[in-house]
């Protein structure tokens, strides 16, 4: 589904990704872990198409198409979803209105008819249950004045509405208490299916107790330096990242 090879990316003069390789197949959950500054969020941003980053080498193929050639909105329409580490406040645009516009733009891209108001509301009601989100929150300006937990829950709600093929969760656990974390993880788990894949970017192992990955990768200095089964996450939790750094230095 997703094939990243030798990906190199920089911001300004600073090189951040230095030859990253990753294969993700449908149905899989991959965790990307690593110390601060390793390039975890950069990877998420580059995949979603953030223009601040320059891709200086390598390729990303998604469902047979060159992802790096596409605008962010095209990537979304092709089925990529990024749950932001810091969801942006959009004053004056309600979540409902925002999602209706997004969903119908994606449908237009795919040659589908737009959902009418009734169909849209039905879908929304269905997905609201998934992340236990309140109607009143959805009619407010998107993310404006939301608590940290509400913002993250709203991200997962958006993901549920847009039903991506590949979801990238960028530090979704940051700033969440344990109850909020559980609700967010439940939402993600309910969306797991054999034809969807998830990349979970996280600094801590904690989230992976709730969203259990098939593979764990350690990102360090812009490369994946170690990959393994879910137990690798526990090992990192126990031993920290220093042994990885030492191993990578060899």
């Amino acid at each position, binding site marked *: 589904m997703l094939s990243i090879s030798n990906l190199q990316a920089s911001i300004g003069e600073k090189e951040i990704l230095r030859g990253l390789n990753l294969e993700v197949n449908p149905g899989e959950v991959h965790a990307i872990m690593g110390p601060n500054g390793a390039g975890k969020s950069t990877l998420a941003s580059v995949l*979603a*198409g*953030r*223009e601040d980053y320059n891709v200086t080498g390598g390729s990303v193929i998604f469902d047979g198409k060159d992802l790096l050639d596409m*605008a*962010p*909105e095209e*990537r*979304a*329409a092709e089925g990529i*979803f*990024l749950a*932001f580490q810091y*969801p*942006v*406040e*959009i*004053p*004056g*645009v309600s979540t409902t209105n*925002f*999602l209706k*516009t*997004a*969903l119908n*733009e*994606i449908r237009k*891209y795919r040659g589908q008819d737009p959902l009418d108001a009734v169909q849209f509301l039905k879908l929304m009601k269905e997905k609201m249950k998934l992340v236990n989100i309140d109607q009143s929150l959805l009619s407010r*300006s998107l993310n404006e004045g939301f608590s940290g937990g509400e913002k993250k829950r709203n991200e997962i709600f*958006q993901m549920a509405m*847009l039903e991506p093929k590949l979801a990238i969760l960028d530090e979704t656990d940051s700033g969440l208490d344990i109850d909020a974390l559980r609700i967010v993880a439940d939402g993600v788990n309910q969306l797991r299916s054999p034809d969807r894949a998830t990349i979970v970017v996280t600094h801590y192992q904690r989230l992976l107790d709730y969203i259990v990955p098939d593979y764990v990768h350690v990102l360090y200095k812009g490369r994946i330096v170690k990959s393994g089964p879910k137990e690798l996450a526990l090992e990192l939790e126990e031993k920290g990242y220093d042994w990885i750094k030492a191993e990578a230095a060899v």
Partner: protein
Amino acid sequence: MTPSYASYNDFKDQLLAAFRDNEERMNGERKAPIHQLRRAALKQFDQLGFPTTRNEEWKYSSVSGLLKQPFDLDDTTTVTADDLAPLEIPNLDGNLLYFINGRYHPELSRLVSPAEQVKITSFAEAIKAEPELIGAHFAHYADYQTNAFTALNTALATDGVVVRVPANTTVEQPIILRFITDTRTKNSTSQPRNLIVVGKNAEVMMAESYRTLGEGASFVNVVTEIVLDRDARMQYYKVQNETEKAYHIGTTQVSQKDNSHFYSATITLNGHFVRNNLNIVLNGQHAEAFMYGLYMPNGRQHVDNHTLVDHAMPNSYSNELYKGILDDNSTGVFNGKIFVRPDAQKTNAYQSCKNVVLSPGASMNTKPQLEIFADDVKCSHGTTTGQLNDEALFYMRSRGIPKDEARTLLLYAFSQDVISQIKIQPIREYLERVVTEKLTK
């Protein structure tokens, strides 16, 4: 017969001559108090002359372009209802008054409110029929001593509207004034003058709308004086959608007594050169004034909003929010003055001006001016000028919303803070449509 502009050295001479020409044709009206007042105003205009950018109040707004245009002062036109059809605001109910080149045209207008709710007459008619009313209010509020354009209007204004709302009355239907400048055969000017007197505990909704017909240049110099008695409430909107050759200079002067509420919105959609003065004197306790503004110039348009709130008495409240979206090579000015007089303790005055500049060629000058002479007051002001939020754009695009669509959605939301304040629904819907059209251009 008005002589052609070619016979004068400049626009000022032409205007002065028009006054004298009119005076010569008077029959017994020359001695009337109103004419004496007009003479004083003309003298003042003559002395002041058109302002230059050396005048602090006109620092960023040069009228030199206006003075280079040859204008014909003759206000006769042949506008028909069919000509106006394309300019119509759909579904507009209520009292609708058409002024063509400043002159009231009853055959194009309709008055629907019963006489016990409101008295609506043309200014020209009121001067003749109700000299006492005019004498009691005309030029009592708008300052013609220092403002040359107000002086010019005071001297030359022949028509406009006079609205009186009796005490304890609610005017159920809005009063919409449509000022149309007909430039189809010549460059046209007008000097509309409006007087609105709202009685104790009375309520009214009004709007002024400005449009242009034809491709010629236009110059509108309007003065509206509004007097709110105790407990009166008024919604007042000014909507400008004129052409690339339109010059508009306007002053709205408001005087408020105890516990009166004034809500205004000034919306500038299009126009070549626009200067709006909104001056509010809170001459009573517990009076409240709300001022909203939205301007969205593009091309080479220039929009200047000068507001003044004068807190003269204690315990009053003012709140101001102006928002601008500037594109291409347009320029904007916001100058917001708040006076708090020594007596005006417990004043609350808030002011905010927010701007989005979409192009490197566009610019915005903002200047808040607070002059506070009382010690127990709450005042705040803030201005921001920036670009469209890139983070917000990326966030929206990452959800599948194309860039242009995302930009429109963000700007539309930005404008909604002002447009949503408008209580006359057909006008609000009209604005929503025109704003969307302009944003998606």
